[in-house]
């Protein structure tokens, strides 16, 4: 059995979360406004370029989420830093990462249909991203397998680290294999040049910042939900014990 984790979130944390939520909302609204109404159409892609103000930020946040989940898993596995908090953080970040990976795949598919003429192609980048989605779905399923808390947390942490191996493969797949997907345009690792300029660049940058804030807000709420669920489990156990004590006394 594990120690009681009943914690009441302070008012300060609640206020900080509210501020973060408002900042995220403002950022996303500004990104959508700039992306849809202010920035010009692209010379080659036309209005379809507007989808790229949300698609790369989705992919970036997915990578960030899996990076945080892996770091938290590593900290959980390390005996000196082992804490239930890191397990909860890994679970929260992993779940939000799966949402963003799904959005990356679907928004990319919506962009690909008019650009490439197909909804889906077994391109290395798309395939490894789909694999990443399935790997982290498996990680979330692994977290739900019943078992003693620390056993479950340890095997989940190992699962998260194994799944993370695919992240650099996804990123570098456009360099390693002949790919239909375009190479990085914000900062190309081969040419060290950026291919986005002016209002397009600022809108894309705002998109990255805004959706990172959204990610932080979502993870914070998912973490608090996990904390409350743990507290609920512990309290349920304590109530059951109290009832057994009452029965023993009444006999």
């Amino acid at each position, binding site marked *: 059995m594990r120690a009681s984790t*009943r914690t009441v979130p302070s008012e300060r944390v609640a206020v900080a979360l509210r501020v973060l939520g408002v900042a995220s909302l403002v950022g*996303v609204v500004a990104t*959508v406004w700039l*992306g*849809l109404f202010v920035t010009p159409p692209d010379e080659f892609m*036309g*209005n*379809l370029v*507007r*989808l790229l103000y*949300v*698609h790369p930020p*989705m992919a970036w946040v997915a990578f960030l989420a899996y990076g945080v989940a892996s770091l938290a898993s590593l900290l959980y596995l390390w005996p000196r830093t082992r804490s239930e908090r890191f397990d909860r953080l890994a679970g929260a970040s992993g779940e939000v990462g799966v*949402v963003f990976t*799904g*959005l990356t795949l*679907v*928004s990319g598919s*919506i*962009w690909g*249909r*008019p650009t490439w003429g197909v909804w889906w192609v077994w391109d290395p980048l798309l395939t490894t991203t789909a694999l990443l989605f399935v790997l982290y779905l498996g990680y979330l399923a692994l977290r739900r397998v019943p078992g003693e808390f620390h056993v479950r947390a340890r095997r989940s942490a190992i699962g998260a680290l194994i799944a993370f191996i695919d992240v650099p493969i996804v990123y570098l797949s456009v360099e390693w294999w002949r790919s239909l997907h375009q190479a990085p345009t914000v900062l190309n690792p081969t040419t060290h040049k950026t291919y986005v300029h002016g209002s397009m660049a600022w809108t894309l940058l705002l998109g990255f910042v805004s959706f990172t804030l*959204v990610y932080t*807000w*979502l993870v914070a*709420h*998912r973490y*608090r*939900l996990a904390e*409350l*669920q743990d*507290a*609920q489990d512990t*309290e*349920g156990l*304590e*109530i059951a014990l*109290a*009832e*057994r*004590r*009452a029965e*023993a*006394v009444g*006999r």
Partner: protein
Amino acid sequence: MNGYVEAGYIMVLGTLSSYGVALVAREHAARRRVGTAAVEESIATSADAPVTDLTSPAPRDTPVVMPGELEQDAPGRAP
């Protein structure tokens, strides 16, 4: 625009807002349940406050045998 752009934005924003609202609703529901459980727990424990340890002997309905009585009932000894 051409419909694809609108569809992409609606899908992304709709999914994220639905997920966010669901998380907040689940968090509020969990907080209410934890609050209720805490009250139930305090009622259960306060009703039986004197006995909190299962390993300690129960105070009632337990036959109390004094050492002297055991010696008196021992076989082979004169009454």
